[in-house]
């Protein structure tokens, strides 16, 4: 092995360990955050007994789950029942390897370490474990494998609730994968590349994609909620109908593996939203973040962290605000609304980008993106104001008025 390869491997191993540790600790703290956010929304205190303000609650939960009894349902498939939690956990963790979380950091070292030999690294180190050329295609591919864990957990439990949960999960995740994949095609059209680093670089050169590709962002976010099985799309769990769906029969640490996988998926989806539509680690209105050095790297890392935390908060906010969809509504939304919307949007954006770049000859990416932004305001008004016309998106005020008039009608009829 050459010293350069050894230096690269050393840095990669360090990055892997750091990212893995951050994700695992972060996921544990997210369970606490979820409970705190829900408590705050329901005017309660939430967990506040273990540690300062309940900060050690995840550790207490972990110890409890390790010490609890592991149960195996009668007539279940022992092998599949055991590997199903791992199958849902591994894809969720794999995804954290490809998302760039800060500006590249220049790292130069040249040292000899006993029998291991010489380690050399020169130049900027990308702050991502693996900067894959296939970028978000890798994320789509690996997240589509996450369904195996859930489906197999449901099937191998030998329980009707678990089986129904597993079936719902597979159907739901396949359906929303289509919309998710289609919603990313406009991103590819804008950036011309699928790799995350190229997408971030293009957003720095122009503007954040949430503005010129608003409908893509909308469809991607909805599909992301459905992919992670979070409310309002948590059909596979649906306590009120299926107990807890696919993990009904699981206990102890296997049960918490599903939760770790769910929160790791939430982190990944939020990081994807941030990277694809909110500039990744970009700090807006300044070029200082690309100047290289320790301080810009730390600042961009903090910015990335804040953006992801904001989206995680939005995910929790929605979970504790909206009621659950009915199953047929969920499928209808996926196939009859999200997929056609994404398809039509691809056609519109293809035409618009062609007109702006080739016919009008706008070469400045900022001006081109702003023209597309203006177009997107029109499309958003059309979609949400005219086409939707109160079917899916309604203010709570409208809903409340409707309930009140219905109530009044019922009162007069009675």
């Amino acid at each position, binding site marked *: 092995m050459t010293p350069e390869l050894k230096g690269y491997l050393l840095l990669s191993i360090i990055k892997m360990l750091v990212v893995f540790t951050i994700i695992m600790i972060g996921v544990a703290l997210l369970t606490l955050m979820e409970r705190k956010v829900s408590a705050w929304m329901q005017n309660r205190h939430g967990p506040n007994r273990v540690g300062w303000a309940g900060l050690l609650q995840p550790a207490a939960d972990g110890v409890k789950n390790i010490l609890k009894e592991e149960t195996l349902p009668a007539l279940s498939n022992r092998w599949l029942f055991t590997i199903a939690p791992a199958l849902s956990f591994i894809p969720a963790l794999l995804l954290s390897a490809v998302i760039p979380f800060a500006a590249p950091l220049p790292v130069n070292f040249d040292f000899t370490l006993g029998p291991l030999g010489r380690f050399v690294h020169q130049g900027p180190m990308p702050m991502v474990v693996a900067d894959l*050329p*296939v970028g978000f*295609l890798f994320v789509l591919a*690996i997240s589509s*494998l996450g*369904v195996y864990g859930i*489906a197999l957990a449901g099937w191998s439990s030998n329980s009707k609730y678990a089986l129904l949960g597993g079936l719902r999960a597979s159907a739901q995740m396949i359906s929303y994968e289509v919309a998710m994949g289609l919603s990313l095609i406009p991103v590819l059209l804008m950036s011309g*590349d699928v790799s995350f680093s190229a997408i971030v670089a293009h957003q720095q050169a122009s503007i954040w994609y949430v503005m010129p590709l608003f409908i893509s962002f909308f469809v991607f976010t909805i599909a992301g909620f459905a992919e992670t099985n979070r409310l309002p799309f948590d059909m596979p769990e649906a306590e009120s109908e299926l107990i807890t769906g696919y993990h009904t029969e699981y206990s102890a640490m296997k049960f918490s593996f599903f939760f770790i996988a769910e929160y790791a998926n939430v982190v990944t989806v939020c990081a994807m939203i941030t990277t694809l539509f909110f500039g990744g680690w970009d700090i807006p209105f300044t070029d200082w973040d690309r100047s290289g050095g320790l301080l810009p790297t730390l600042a961009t890392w903090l910015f990335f962290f804040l953006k992801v935390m904001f989206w995680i908060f939005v995910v929790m906010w929605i979970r504790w605000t909206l009621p659950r969809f009915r199953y047929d509504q969920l499928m209808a939304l996926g196939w009859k609304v999200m997929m056609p919307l994404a398809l039509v949007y691809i056609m519109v954006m293809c035409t618009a980008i062609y007109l702006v770049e080739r016919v009008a000859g706008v070469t400045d990416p900022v001006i081109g993106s702003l023209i597309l932004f203006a177009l997107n305001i029109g499309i958003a008004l059309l979609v949400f104001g005219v086409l939707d016309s109160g079917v899916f998106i309604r203010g709570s005020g409208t809903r409340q008025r409707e309930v009140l008039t219905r109530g009044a009608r019922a009162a007069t009829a009675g």
Partner: protein
Amino acid sequence: MLEAVFYVFAAVAVVTASMCILSRSAMSAVLWLTATMLSLAALYVLLSAEFIAAIQVLVYAGAVMVLFLFVVMLLNLGQATTDMRGPAALATTIVIAGLLAIQLFALWSYTPARLASEVAQAPQLSDPATLFAAGQIARDEAVSRGVVGAVAVPLFQVYLVPFEITSVLLLAAIVGAVVLAKRRL
């Protein structure tokens, strides 16, 4: 080093493929086949076809096999009961295995040097640079756009007509499936 990685994934592909055929429960056959698909994707990465590898995982392991799994779960198939034993089955097995062995033996003589010479002699009809005005510029631009461009240029320039014919065929298949599945439309 790369060769060692290749042999690991090739061995996994062969073992999982045989387990898929040999396992008696339909569920484990589906899962072994999924493992085969994943190791094939790893082999594509070793061939520097990252895009094909991602699509392999996305379409085959992530969608097609999930549908298989779905159907097996719904049908609730038990263990396979039909046993392929007896002289007729043995004779068929020997014939098929013999044919495969002959084919593999013939492929053995196909060395990398011979492959390289054949590629060098073949006419480069599929090169967009020779087919289109400004084809060279378009190709360089698209290939510089990463892994997707390298697939997109041949697909949407040189092989556009076959591509469109394939999509019409797929559309016909979809319409046919809908007609068959829904008798009363």
